[in-house]
C-alpha cells in the first residue's frame, strides 16, 4: 500500500530507508561497529556473497539498524528478509544471535553486546517448514 510506505524511491529506482541511520552515515559520537552477519544459502546466492559478511553499523546496533545495513550493502535483498512496505519480518525468516531467537523482538531492540562488538554473528535463518 503506497500510502503507508516507510521507504521512498532513490535515484537508482530502488528504495532506501526514509529515516534513521544508514550504513554509510557517520556517527558523530561513536565510531561504526563492524557487525558480522550470516545469511542463508539462498540469500547468499542472490547477493553473490559468501557465508559471512561484515558490515559497518553505527551505534546503537539495533535489529533494524543491522537489517538496514544488510539491505543498503545488498539492495537485491530488499523484500527478501522484510516486507518492502511495512518492513515487517517475512513470516519464514528468523533472526538468531548468541543462542537467542530475536525474531519477535521490536525493531529498535539493541542487539547483544557480543554482536555489536563483532565477536558473535547476527544470523538470518530460513525457518524450518515442511517435512
Amino acid at each position: 500500500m503506497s500510502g503507508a510506505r516507510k521507504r521512498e524511491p532513490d535515484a537508482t529506482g530502488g528504495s532506501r530507508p526514509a529515516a534513521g541511520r544508514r550504513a554509510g552515515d557517520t556517527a558523530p559520537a561513536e565510531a561504526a561497529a563492524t557487525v558480522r552477519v550470516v545469511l542463508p544459502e539462498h540469500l547468499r546466492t542472490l547477493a553473490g556473497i559468501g557465508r559471512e559478511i561484515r558490515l559497518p553499523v553505527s551505534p546503537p546496533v539495533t535489529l533494524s539498524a543491522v537489517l538496514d545495513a544488510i539491505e543498503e550493502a545488498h539492495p537485491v535483498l530488499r523484500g527478501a528478509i522484510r516486507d518492502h512496505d511495512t518492513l515487517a519480518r517475512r513470516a519464514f525468516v528468523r533472526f538468531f544471535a548468541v543462542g537467542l531467537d530475536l525474531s519477535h523482538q521490536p525493531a529498535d531492540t539493541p542487539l547483544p553486546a557480543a554482536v555489536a562488538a563483532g565477536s558473535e554473528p547476527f544470523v538470518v535463518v530460513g525457518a524450518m517448514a515442511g517435512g
Partner: protein
Amino acid sequence: MSGVRVLVGTRKGAFVLTADARRRDWTVEGPEFGGWQIYHLKGSPVDPDRIYASQSLGWFGQQIQRSDDGGRSWSPVGNEFSYQGVPGTHQWYDGTPHPWKFERVWHLEPSLDDPDTVYAGVEDAALFRSRDGGASWQELEGLRTHGSGPKWQPGAGGMCLHTVVLDPSRPERMFVAISAAGVFRTDDGGASWRAANSGLNSEGVLPDPEADVGHCVHRIAMHPSRPDTLFMQKHWDVMRSDDGGDSWVEVSGNLPSDFGFPIQVHAHEPETVYVVPIKSDSEHYPPEGKLRVYRSRSGGNEWEPLVKGLPQQHCYVNVLRDAMAVDQLDRCGVYFGTTGGDVYASSDDGDSWTAIARDLPSVLSVEVQTIP
C-alpha cells in the same frame, strides 16, 4: 541455421533446452536459480536475447531476473510490487473479506514492440507494468479497482492473474485472466477494464452460473492473425470467442474431459487448437492414466487424441496452465511440461512426441523462442 530455445520454469529452478531447427538433438542447461520456484520465463518478441524470469520462494519472497544474452547470464532487477492506493479486500475461500496482499508473480508478458516493457500478472490478482526492463513496476490499478474486485475469490492455487494476452493489431487492447474472477479486457492500454465473461457457465461452482465475474478461467490463447478470436480452457469447458471476448461459446465437443489447464493455438493454422484433458478438478490427472494431447483442426468441437510417444498407461501427472507453447517453425513445434518433471516436444504439429527432458522438478511453465 535457425533453432529453438525452450524456457522451462519448475518448482526448483529454471532450465533452458536448445536444439537446431530439426529439433532432434537437445541440450539441457540448468538448473538456474536452483531451489527457487520459477513460475514463468518469457523472452521479448523483438529481442530474443532479452528474457524475464519470475523467481519466488515462500521464505524469501519475489525476485525478477533478467537476461540480456539469451539466458546465459542473469541479473536481478526490481522486485517491489506495491498496489496503488488502499488495496481493500477481495473474498477469501470462505467468502469473508480478505485484504489484498502481494504473494508472487505468476506470469511475465513482454511487450510486442519494446524489450524494456513487460507486464506482470500477480497474486493477489493485479497487473503491473515495467517500462525500464523490470527495474521498477507500476500497477495498472484500473483492473483491480474494477467494481467487481471485492467479489473476486482465489482458486485452489491462489487468486492469481495468470494470463496476459496482447493484441498485435490494437496496441491499446489486451486481455487478462484471473482465477477465479474471469477474463477482463482493456481497450485503453490498461487504464480501464471490463469483464468479458458473457457466455461462460459455471454450473455447480457459482451460485449464479452465468455471473459477470467469478469464473475460474484457466488460460486463454489467441492467434496473432485473428485477434478477435480467443480460445479458453475454463475450469470445466473449452470455449471460444469470435468477438474479442464479448461473448463465448462452448467447443468442448468430443473431448473425454473438458477440464484442463493449458490451451494453445498452432503457429500457422489459427483454427488448430491444443488442449490436455484432465479427468476432473478433484483428481487432476489424465483420464485412464493416458497422457493425451487433443487437437482440433476446426477451432473446437471436433477433437482428435495425439498419443504417439506419450505415456499411455499409469500416467498421473498434470500439465499446468502456462506449461504449453508452440514454436514458429514449419512444421509447427508443440511443447509441454508435466508436474512429473518431463518436457515433451513435437516437431510435427503434435502428430508425434518425444521427451526432450526427463525427471526435472515439477514443471510450472514452458515457453519457446524461435531463434532466427
